[in-house]
Protein backbone atom coordinates (compact mmCIF):
# COMPACT_ATOMS: atom_id res chain seq x y z
CA UNK A 1 0.00 0.00 0.00
CA UNK A 2 2.77 2.42 1.02
CA UNK A 3 4.59 1.45 -2.19
CA UNK A 4 1.56 2.36 -4.26
CA UNK A 5 1.08 5.68 -2.46
CA UNK A 6 4.76 6.48 -3.03
CA UNK A 7 4.44 5.69 -6.73
CA UNK A 8 1.34 7.88 -7.06
CA UNK A 9 3.11 10.69 -5.21
CA UNK A 10 6.09 10.52 -7.58
CA UNK A 11 3.84 10.61 -10.65
CA UNK A 12 1.98 13.55 -9.13
CA UNK A 13 5.24 15.39 -8.43
CA UNK A 14 6.36 14.82 -12.03
CA UNK A 15 3.09 16.23 -13.37
CA UNK A 16 3.20 19.23 -11.01
CA UNK A 17 6.83 19.97 -12.00
CA UNK A 18 5.91 19.69 -15.66
CA UNK A 19 3.01 22.11 -15.24
CA UNK A 20 5.27 24.52 -13.32
CA UNK A 21 7.88 24.48 -16.11
CA UNK A 22 5.20 25.00 -18.73
CA UNK A 23 3.78 27.84 -16.65
CA UNK A 24 7.19 29.53 -16.39
CA UNK A 25 7.65 29.09 -20.13
CA UNK A 26 4.40 30.93 -20.88
CA UNK A 27 4.92 33.59 -18.19
CA UNK A 28 8.29 34.31 -19.84
CA UNK A 29 6.57 34.83 -23.21
CA UNK A 30 3.87 37.06 -21.75
CA UNK A 31 6.49 39.11 -19.89
CA UNK A 32 8.51 39.56 -23.09
CA UNK A 33 5.40 40.64 -25.03
CA UNK A 34 4.16 42.85 -22.17
CA UNK A 35 7.45 44.75 -21.97
CA UNK A 36 7.30 45.48 -25.71
CA UNK A 37 4.30 47.76 -25.11
CA UNK A 38 5.39 49.22 -21.73
CA UNK A 39 7.88 52.14 -21.48
CA UNK A 40 10.78 52.77 -21.42
CA UNK A 41 11.00 52.02 -25.15
CA UNK A 42 14.45 51.24 -26.49
CA UNK A 43 14.12 51.12 -30.29
CA UNK A 44 17.90 51.06 -30.79
CA UNK A 45 18.10 47.71 -28.96
CA UNK A 46 15.49 46.20 -31.28
CA UNK A 47 17.22 47.69 -34.34
CA UNK A 48 20.53 46.21 -33.22
CA UNK A 49 18.90 42.78 -32.90
CA UNK A 50 17.23 43.15 -36.30
CA UNK A 51 20.72 43.73 -37.69
CA UNK A 52 22.17 40.67 -35.90
CA UNK A 53 19.25 38.27 -36.43
CA UNK A 54 17.95 39.65 -39.71
CA UNK A 55 20.41 41.61 -41.80
CA UNK A 56 23.39 39.44 -40.96
CA UNK A 57 21.41 36.32 -41.96
CA UNK A 58 20.63 37.67 -45.44
CA UNK A 59 23.56 36.05 -47.21
CA UNK A 60 22.80 32.66 -45.67
CA UNK A 61 19.14 32.94 -46.70
CA UNK A 62 20.13 33.94 -50.25
CA UNK A 63 22.42 30.92 -50.47
CA UNK A 64 19.93 28.41 -49.05
CA UNK A 65 17.06 29.95 -51.04
CA UNK A 66 18.96 29.71 -54.33
CA UNK A 67 19.84 26.05 -53.89
CA UNK A 68 16.39 25.12 -52.63
CA UNK A 69 14.84 26.76 -55.71
CA UNK A 70 17.37 25.05 -57.98
CA UNK A 71 16.66 21.59 -56.61
CA UNK A 72 12.90 22.24 -56.83
CA UNK A 73 13.39 23.27 -60.48
CA UNK A 74 15.32 20.10 -61.21
CA UNK A 75 13.04 17.67 -59.38
CA UNK A 76 9.90 19.47 -60.47
CA UNK A 77 10.91 19.46 -64.14
CA UNK A 78 11.78 15.74 -64.13
CA UNK A 79 8.53 14.82 -62.39
CA UNK A 80 6.26 17.08 -64.45
CA UNK A 81 7.82 15.88 -67.72
CA UNK A 82 6.44 12.40 -67.00
CA UNK A 83 2.97 13.92 -67.18
CA UNK A 84 3.94 16.26 -70.00
CA UNK A 85 3.05 19.25 -67.86
CA UNK A 86 6.36 21.13 -67.73
CA UNK A 87 4.36 24.34 -68.08
CA UNK A 88 3.20 23.99 -64.48
CA UNK A 89 6.80 24.12 -63.20
CA UNK A 90 6.60 27.80 -62.11
CA UNK A 91 3.40 27.18 -60.15
CA UNK A 92 4.81 24.12 -58.42
CA UNK A 93 8.08 25.83 -57.45
CA UNK A 94 6.41 29.04 -56.31
CA UNK A 95 3.61 27.42 -54.27
CA UNK A 96 6.02 25.01 -52.58
CA UNK A 97 8.30 27.89 -51.63
CA UNK A 98 5.70 30.46 -50.65
CA UNK A 99 3.46 28.16 -48.63
CA UNK A 100 5.95 25.72 -47.08
CA UNK A 101 9.64 25.72 -47.71
CA UNK A 102 10.21 29.48 -47.50
CA UNK A 103 8.90 30.00 -43.97
CA UNK A 104 10.06 26.60 -42.63
CA UNK A 105 13.61 26.57 -43.99
CA UNK A 106 14.12 30.24 -43.11
CA UNK A 107 13.02 29.54 -39.53
CA UNK A 108 15.26 26.48 -39.24
CA UNK A 109 18.27 28.34 -40.63
CA UNK A 110 17.81 31.33 -38.32
CA UNK A 111 17.28 29.02 -35.34
CA UNK A 112 20.57 27.35 -36.18
CA UNK A 113 22.47 30.55 -36.88
CA UNK A 114 21.03 33.28 -34.63
CA UNK A 115 18.99 31.24 -32.13
CA UNK A 116 21.96 29.20 -30.96
CA UNK A 117 24.13 32.31 -30.61
CA UNK A 118 21.38 34.03 -28.67
CA UNK A 119 20.92 31.14 -26.23
CA UNK A 120 24.70 30.99 -25.69
CA UNK A 121 24.95 34.75 -25.19
CA UNK A 122 22.10 34.96 -22.68
CA UNK A 123 23.35 31.81 -20.93
CA UNK A 124 26.84 33.18 -20.45
CA UNK A 125 25.44 36.55 -19.34
CA UNK A 126 23.48 34.65 -16.69
CA UNK A 127 26.56 32.62 -15.68
CA UNK A 128 28.75 35.73 -15.27
CA UNK A 129 26.10 37.65 -13.28
CA UNK A 130 25.56 40.20 -16.06
CA UNK A 131 21.80 39.59 -15.84
CA UNK A 132 21.92 40.23 -12.07
CA UNK A 133 23.94 43.37 -12.79
CA UNK A 134 21.05 44.67 -14.92
CA UNK A 135 18.56 43.87 -12.15
CA UNK A 136 20.53 45.73 -9.48
CA UNK A 137 20.72 48.74 -11.80
CA UNK A 138 16.90 48.66 -11.74
CA UNK A 139 16.79 47.63 -15.41
CA UNK A 140 14.33 44.84 -16.16
CA UNK A 141 16.45 42.14 -17.82
CA UNK A 142 13.53 40.64 -19.76
CA UNK A 143 12.68 44.06 -21.17
CA UNK A 144 16.31 44.83 -21.95
CA UNK A 145 17.41 41.45 -23.32
CA UNK A 146 14.38 39.45 -24.45
CA UNK A 147 11.75 41.88 -25.75
CA UNK A 148 14.08 43.45 -28.37
CA UNK A 149 14.93 39.97 -29.67
CA UNK A 150 11.25 39.04 -29.95
CA UNK A 151 10.59 42.25 -31.90
CA UNK A 152 13.57 41.47 -34.12
CA UNK A 153 12.21 37.97 -34.76
CA UNK A 154 8.77 39.29 -35.71
CA UNK A 155 10.33 41.80 -38.13
CA UNK A 156 13.12 39.67 -39.57
CA UNK A 157 11.42 36.32 -40.19
CA UNK A 158 8.77 37.54 -42.68
CA UNK A 159 11.31 39.70 -44.54
CA UNK A 160 13.89 36.92 -44.80
CA UNK A 161 11.14 34.51 -45.84
CA UNK A 162 10.16 36.89 -48.65
CA UNK A 163 13.78 37.06 -49.80
CA UNK A 164 14.00 33.27 -49.65
CA UNK A 165 10.83 32.90 -51.78
CA UNK A 166 11.97 35.33 -54.47
CA UNK A 167 15.50 34.00 -54.80
CA UNK A 168 14.15 30.42 -54.75
CA UNK A 169 11.75 31.15 -57.62
CA UNK A 170 14.66 32.66 -59.57
CA UNK A 171 16.80 29.60 -58.80
CA UNK A 172 14.02 27.34 -60.06
CA UNK A 173 13.78 29.42 -63.24
CA UNK A 174 17.51 29.19 -63.94
CA UNK A 175 17.53 25.39 -63.63
CA UNK A 176 14.04 24.55 -64.95
CA UNK A 177 13.93 26.96 -67.86
CA UNK A 178 17.49 27.91 -68.77
CA UNK A 179 19.12 24.55 -68.14
CA UNK A 180 16.38 21.94 -68.64
CA UNK A 181 14.34 23.81 -71.23
CA UNK A 182 10.91 24.22 -69.66
CA UNK A 183 8.90 27.02 -71.35
CA UNK A 184 9.90 30.33 -69.71
CA UNK A 185 6.70 32.26 -70.38
CA UNK A 186 4.46 29.62 -68.82
CA UNK A 187 6.81 29.47 -65.78
CA UNK A 188 6.18 33.15 -65.06
CA UNK A 189 2.53 33.26 -66.21
CA UNK A 190 1.75 30.18 -64.11
CA UNK A 191 3.03 31.98 -61.03
CA UNK A 192 1.08 35.15 -61.83
CA UNK A 193 -2.17 33.21 -62.36
CA UNK A 194 -1.99 30.59 -59.62
CA UNK A 195 -0.21 32.17 -56.65
CA UNK A 196 -2.78 34.39 -54.98
CA UNK A 197 -2.80 36.71 -51.97
CA UNK A 198 -4.05 33.91 -49.72
CA UNK A 199 -0.97 31.79 -50.48
CA UNK A 200 1.34 34.68 -49.72
CA UNK A 201 -0.56 35.54 -46.52
CA UNK A 202 -0.27 31.91 -45.38
CA UNK A 203 3.49 32.12 -45.73
CA UNK A 204 3.65 35.43 -43.87
CA UNK A 205 1.48 34.16 -40.99
CA UNK A 206 3.68 31.11 -40.67
CA UNK A 207 6.86 33.14 -40.63
CA UNK A 208 5.45 35.43 -37.91
CA UNK A 209 4.54 32.45 -35.73
CA UNK A 210 7.92 30.81 -36.37
CA UNK A 211 9.70 34.07 -35.54
CA UNK A 212 7.92 34.22 -32.21
CA UNK A 213 8.50 30.53 -31.42
CA UNK A 214 12.21 30.56 -32.27
CA UNK A 215 12.97 33.74 -30.32
CA UNK A 216 10.83 32.61 -27.37
CA UNK A 217 12.43 29.18 -27.07
CA UNK A 218 16.01 30.34 -27.67
CA UNK A 219 15.73 33.26 -25.23
CA UNK A 220 14.00 31.10 -22.61
CA UNK A 221 16.65 28.38 -22.81
CA UNK A 222 19.52 30.87 -22.64
CA UNK A 223 17.96 32.95 -19.89
CA UNK A 224 17.32 29.89 -17.72
CA UNK A 225 20.65 28.17 -18.39
CA UNK A 226 22.39 26.69 -15.38
CA UNK A 227 25.15 29.01 -14.21
CA UNK A 228 28.12 27.03 -15.51
CA UNK A 229 29.85 26.20 -18.78
CA UNK A 230 28.01 22.89 -19.28
CA UNK A 231 24.73 24.66 -18.52
CA UNK A 232 25.37 27.12 -21.35
CA UNK A 233 26.24 24.39 -23.84
CA UNK A 234 23.18 22.35 -22.87
CA UNK A 235 20.96 25.42 -23.19
CA UNK A 236 22.33 26.11 -26.68
CA UNK A 237 21.69 22.56 -27.87
CA UNK A 238 18.22 22.44 -26.35
CA UNK A 239 17.34 25.82 -27.82
CA UNK A 240 18.12 24.74 -31.39
CA UNK A 241 16.57 21.27 -31.10
CA UNK A 242 13.42 22.45 -29.35
CA UNK A 243 12.82 25.44 -31.61
CA UNK A 244 13.39 23.33 -34.75
CA UNK A 245 10.98 20.64 -33.55
CA UNK A 246 8.36 23.23 -32.58
CA UNK A 247 8.68 24.94 -35.98
CA UNK A 248 7.92 21.67 -37.78
CA UNK A 249 5.09 20.70 -35.40
CA UNK A 250 3.50 24.14 -35.64
CA UNK A 251 3.93 24.06 -39.41
CA UNK A 252 1.63 21.06 -39.60
CA UNK A 253 -1.05 22.64 -37.40
CA UNK A 254 -0.84 26.03 -39.13
CA UNK A 255 -1.10 24.36 -42.52
CA UNK A 256 -4.20 22.46 -41.46
CA UNK A 257 -5.78 25.67 -40.15
CA UNK A 258 -4.76 28.00 -42.96
CA UNK A 259 -5.18 25.66 -45.94
Amino acid at each position, binding site marked *: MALLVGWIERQGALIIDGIAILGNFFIFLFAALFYIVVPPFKPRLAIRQIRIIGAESTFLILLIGTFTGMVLGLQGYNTLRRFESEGALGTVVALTLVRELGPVLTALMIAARAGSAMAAELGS*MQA*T*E*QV*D*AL*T*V*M*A*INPVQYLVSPRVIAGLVSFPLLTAIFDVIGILGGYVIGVDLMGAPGSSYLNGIAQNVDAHDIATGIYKSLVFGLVVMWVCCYKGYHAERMATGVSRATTEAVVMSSVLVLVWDYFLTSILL
Partner: protein
Amino acid sequence: MAIERNGGPNAIEVRELRRRFGAQEVLRGVDIDFPRGQITTIVGPSGCGKTVFLKHLNLLLRPDSGRIVTEGIEVTALGGRALDMVREKFGMLFQSGALFDSMPVFDNVAFPLVEKTHLGRAEIVARVHEMLAAVGLQGMENKYPSELSGGMQKRAALARALIHRPGILMLDEPTTGLDPTRIGAIHALVRSTQQHFALTAVLVSHDVPDVFEISDRIAFMHQGRMRLHGTVAEVTAAHDETFERFLAGKASGEEEIPAATG
Protein backbone atom coordinates in the same frame (compact mmCIF):
# COMPACT_ATOMS: atom_id res chain seq x y z
CA MET B 1 6.05 57.60 -3.97
CA ALA B 2 8.62 59.55 -1.99
CA ILE B 3 11.24 57.61 -0.12
CA GLU B 4 12.37 59.65 2.85
CA ARG B 5 15.81 59.42 4.27
CA ASN B 6 15.50 58.66 7.94
CA GLY B 7 17.79 60.36 10.39
CA GLY B 8 18.75 57.23 12.35
CA PRO B 9 22.34 56.04 12.50
CA ASN B 10 21.75 52.90 10.44
CA ALA B 11 21.56 52.78 6.66
CA ILE B 12 20.21 49.22 6.72
CA GLU B 13 18.58 47.23 9.50
CA VAL B 14 17.93 43.51 9.12
CA ARG B 15 15.67 41.56 11.44
CA GLU B 16 15.06 37.79 11.66
CA LEU B 17 15.85 37.21 7.97
CA ARG B 18 15.19 33.66 6.87
CA ARG B 19 15.61 31.97 3.51
CA ARG B 20 15.38 28.33 2.55
CA PHE B 21 16.50 26.68 -0.72
CA GLY B 22 14.75 23.35 -1.01
CA ALA B 23 15.54 21.40 2.14
CA GLN B 24 18.45 23.64 3.13
CA GLU B 25 17.86 26.65 5.35
CA VAL B 26 20.65 29.04 4.33
CA LEU B 27 19.64 32.09 6.36
CA ARG B 28 18.38 31.12 9.82
CA GLY B 29 17.28 34.40 11.35
CA VAL B 30 19.87 37.06 10.52
CA ASP B 31 19.87 40.18 12.73
CA ILE B 32 22.30 42.99 11.96
CA ASP B 33 22.53 46.77 11.51
CA PHE B 34 24.75 48.55 9.02
CA PRO B 35 25.69 52.00 10.39
CA ARG B 36 25.76 54.80 7.83
CA GLY B 37 29.14 55.83 6.43
CA GLN B 38 31.05 52.76 7.62
CA ILE B 39 32.53 49.64 6.05
CA THR B 40 31.03 46.49 7.52
CA THR B 41 32.83 43.34 6.45
CA ILE B 42 31.04 39.99 6.55
CA VAL B 43 33.37 37.04 6.98
CA GLY B 44 32.72 33.39 7.57
CA PRO B 45 33.44 29.92 6.27
CA SER B 46 32.60 29.10 2.63
CA GLY B 47 28.96 28.19 2.14
CA CYS B 48 27.76 29.91 5.32
CA GLY B 49 25.39 32.13 3.30
CA LYS B 50 27.38 35.38 2.96
CA THR B 51 26.70 35.96 -0.73
CA VAL B 52 23.08 34.82 -0.37
CA PHE B 53 22.65 37.34 2.46
CA LEU B 54 24.24 40.12 0.39
CA LYS B 55 21.88 39.41 -2.51
CA HIS B 56 18.92 39.85 -0.15
CA LEU B 57 19.94 43.39 0.76
CA ASN B 58 19.12 44.76 -2.71
CA LEU B 59 16.41 42.13 -3.21
CA LEU B 60 18.13 40.14 -5.93
CA LEU B 61 16.79 37.34 -3.76
CA ARG B 62 13.63 37.53 -1.65
CA PRO B 63 13.51 36.29 1.94
CA ASP B 64 10.95 33.75 3.16
CA SER B 65 10.42 35.87 6.26
CA GLY B 66 12.00 38.73 8.17
CA ARG B 67 12.45 42.45 7.56
CA ILE B 68 14.99 44.64 5.80
CA VAL B 69 14.70 48.37 6.46
CA THR B 70 16.80 50.51 4.09
CA GLU B 71 17.00 54.24 4.89
CA GLY B 72 13.83 53.94 6.95
CA ILE B 73 11.85 52.06 4.29
CA GLU B 74 10.70 48.49 4.79
CA VAL B 75 11.80 47.04 1.45
CA THR B 76 11.00 43.34 1.67
CA ALA B 77 7.47 43.75 0.32
CA LEU B 78 8.21 46.36 -2.36
CA GLY B 79 7.74 45.86 -6.10
CA GLY B 80 7.68 47.87 -9.30
CA ARG B 81 8.82 51.48 -9.29
CA ALA B 82 9.25 51.66 -5.49
CA LEU B 83 11.63 48.71 -5.63
CA ASP B 84 13.57 50.35 -8.50
CA MET B 85 13.98 53.47 -6.36
CA VAL B 86 15.43 51.41 -3.51
CA ARG B 87 17.74 49.54 -5.89
CA GLU B 88 19.06 52.84 -7.23
CA LYS B 89 20.40 53.62 -3.74
CA PHE B 90 22.73 50.63 -4.08
CA GLY B 91 25.84 50.04 -6.12
CA MET B 92 26.99 46.46 -6.36
CA LEU B 93 30.35 45.01 -7.27
CA PHE B 94 29.86 41.36 -8.25
CA GLN B 95 32.33 38.59 -7.58
CA SER B 96 33.00 38.14 -11.31
CA GLY B 97 32.85 41.88 -12.02
CA ALA B 98 29.84 41.25 -14.29
CA LEU B 99 30.98 43.81 -16.85
CA PHE B 100 29.02 43.61 -20.09
CA ASP B 101 31.54 41.94 -22.38
CA SER B 102 29.86 43.28 -25.50
CA MET B 103 30.78 46.86 -24.52
CA PRO B 104 34.05 48.75 -23.99
CA VAL B 105 34.90 50.14 -20.54
CA PHE B 106 33.46 53.58 -21.29
CA ASP B 107 30.04 52.20 -22.27
CA ASN B 108 30.04 49.84 -19.29
CA VAL B 109 30.68 52.64 -16.82
CA ALA B 110 28.30 55.05 -18.58
CA PHE B 111 25.58 52.38 -18.80
CA PRO B 112 23.58 53.24 -15.64
CA LEU B 113 23.59 56.94 -16.60
CA VAL B 114 22.62 56.28 -20.24
CA GLU B 115 19.82 53.89 -19.29
CA LYS B 116 18.42 55.46 -16.13
CA THR B 117 18.99 59.22 -16.37
CA HIS B 118 18.37 62.02 -18.84
CA LEU B 119 21.86 63.50 -18.54
CA GLY B 120 23.40 65.03 -21.65
CA ARG B 121 26.32 63.41 -23.47
CA ALA B 122 28.87 65.97 -22.20
CA GLU B 123 27.81 65.46 -18.58
CA ILE B 124 28.01 61.67 -18.94
CA VAL B 125 31.48 61.85 -20.53
CA ALA B 126 32.70 64.12 -17.73
CA ARG B 127 31.35 61.86 -14.99
CA VAL B 128 32.74 58.69 -16.55
CA HIS B 129 36.20 60.27 -16.90
CA GLU B 130 36.08 61.48 -13.32
CA MET B 131 35.07 58.04 -12.06
CA LEU B 132 37.68 56.20 -14.16
CA ALA B 133 40.32 58.57 -12.76
CA ALA B 134 39.10 57.82 -9.22
CA VAL B 135 39.66 54.06 -9.75
CA GLY B 136 42.93 54.54 -11.66
CA LEU B 137 41.74 53.52 -15.13
CA GLN B 138 42.41 56.68 -17.17
CA GLY B 139 43.01 55.95 -20.84
CA MET B 140 41.25 52.53 -20.72
CA GLU B 141 37.93 53.84 -22.05
CA ASN B 142 38.05 51.94 -25.33
CA LYS B 143 39.30 48.61 -24.04
CA TYR B 144 36.91 45.67 -23.87
CA PRO B 145 36.62 43.74 -20.57
CA SER B 146 38.42 40.75 -22.13
CA GLU B 147 41.45 42.98 -22.76
CA LEU B 148 41.75 43.95 -19.08
CA SER B 149 43.50 42.12 -16.23
CA GLY B 150 41.39 40.76 -13.37
CA GLY B 151 42.25 43.70 -11.15
CA MET B 152 41.41 46.23 -13.86
CA GLN B 153 38.05 44.50 -14.45
CA LYS B 154 37.27 44.89 -10.75
CA ARG B 155 38.24 48.58 -10.94
CA ALA B 156 36.01 49.12 -13.97
CA ALA B 157 33.17 47.27 -12.25
CA LEU B 158 33.65 49.44 -9.16
CA ALA B 159 33.48 52.55 -11.33
CA ARG B 160 30.22 51.29 -12.86
CA ALA B 161 28.80 50.48 -9.41
CA LEU B 162 29.49 54.04 -8.22
CA ILE B 163 28.69 56.12 -11.33
CA HIS B 164 25.06 56.80 -10.34
CA ARG B 165 26.25 58.01 -6.90
CA PRO B 166 24.59 55.44 -4.68
CA GLY B 167 24.65 55.82 -0.90
CA ILE B 168 25.34 52.15 -0.26
CA LEU B 169 28.03 50.04 -1.91
CA MET B 170 27.96 46.25 -1.75
CA LEU B 171 31.03 44.26 -2.64
CA ASP B 172 30.88 40.50 -3.12
CA GLU B 173 34.40 39.15 -2.63
CA PRO B 174 36.11 41.91 -4.63
CA THR B 175 39.55 40.28 -4.43
CA THR B 176 38.61 36.74 -5.48
CA GLY B 177 40.82 35.49 -8.29
CA LEU B 178 43.35 38.30 -7.94
CA ASP B 179 47.07 38.04 -7.62
CA PRO B 180 47.99 38.50 -3.90
CA THR B 181 49.99 41.66 -4.66
CA ARG B 182 46.82 43.21 -6.14
CA ILE B 183 44.65 42.43 -3.11
CA GLY B 184 46.13 45.23 -1.02
CA ALA B 185 45.65 47.68 -3.89
CA ILE B 186 41.96 46.79 -4.24
CA HIS B 187 41.48 47.05 -0.47
CA ALA B 188 43.09 50.50 -0.47
CA LEU B 189 40.90 51.51 -3.39
CA VAL B 190 37.74 50.32 -1.62
CA ARG B 191 38.70 52.30 1.49
CA SER B 192 39.59 55.48 -0.40
CA THR B 193 36.44 55.46 -2.57
CA GLN B 194 34.27 54.70 0.48
CA GLN B 195 35.73 57.73 2.27
CA HIS B 196 35.71 59.95 -0.81
CA PHE B 197 32.03 59.31 -1.56
CA ALA B 198 31.00 58.91 2.14
CA LEU B 199 29.49 55.50 1.38
CA THR B 200 27.95 52.89 3.59
CA ALA B 201 29.77 49.76 2.44
CA VAL B 202 28.92 46.11 2.94
CA LEU B 203 31.83 43.88 2.01
CA VAL B 204 31.89 40.11 1.81
CA SER B 205 35.45 38.87 2.00
CA HIS B 206 37.70 35.84 2.43
CA ASP B 207 40.82 37.90 3.09
CA VAL B 208 40.97 37.58 6.86
CA PRO B 209 42.62 39.12 8.73
CA ASP B 210 43.99 41.58 6.07
CA VAL B 211 40.53 42.97 5.34
CA PHE B 212 40.08 44.04 8.98
CA GLU B 213 42.50 46.92 8.33
CA ILE B 214 40.03 48.64 6.02
CA SER B 215 36.91 47.66 7.97
CA ASP B 216 35.07 49.68 10.60
CA ARG B 217 32.95 46.76 11.65
CA ILE B 218 33.07 42.98 11.34
CA ALA B 219 30.22 40.51 11.15
CA PHE B 220 31.08 36.85 11.52
CA MET B 221 28.52 34.69 9.80
CA HIS B 222 28.23 31.10 10.89
CA GLN B 223 25.55 28.52 10.13
CA GLY B 224 23.13 31.04 8.67
CA ARG B 225 23.33 33.58 11.51
CA MET B 226 25.48 36.54 12.48
CA ARG B 227 27.34 34.90 15.33
CA LEU B 228 29.31 38.05 16.17
CA HIS B 229 29.11 41.60 14.98
CA GLY B 230 30.52 44.90 16.13
CA THR B 231 33.56 47.10 15.65
CA VAL B 232 36.80 45.35 14.76
CA ALA B 233 38.04 45.83 18.34
CA GLU B 234 34.81 44.47 19.86
CA VAL B 235 34.76 41.39 17.69
CA THR B 236 38.40 40.52 18.20
CA ALA B 237 38.06 41.13 21.98
CA ALA B 238 35.04 38.83 22.22
CA HIS B 239 37.27 35.72 22.29
CA ASP B 240 34.60 33.63 20.59
CA GLU B 241 35.94 30.15 20.16
CA THR B 242 34.36 29.50 16.75
CA PHE B 243 35.58 32.82 15.38
CA GLU B 244 39.10 32.22 16.63
CA ARG B 245 39.10 28.74 15.13
CA PHE B 246 37.94 30.26 11.82
CA LEU B 247 40.76 32.85 11.95
CA ALA B 248 43.33 30.25 12.97
CA GLY B 249 42.23 27.96 10.16
CA LYS B 250 42.78 30.75 7.68
CA ALA B 251 46.12 31.77 9.23
CA SER B 252 47.57 28.28 9.38
CA GLY B 253 46.50 27.77 5.75
CA GLU B 254 48.65 30.73 4.79
CA GLU B 255 51.60 29.63 6.89
CA GLU B 256 51.77 26.26 5.21
CA ILE B 257 53.05 27.80 2.00
CA PRO B 258 56.55 28.88 3.18
CA ALA B 259 56.86 25.66 5.18
CA ALA B 260 56.15 23.58 2.10
CA THR B 261 58.57 25.51 -0.11
CA GLY B 262 61.25 25.61 2.60
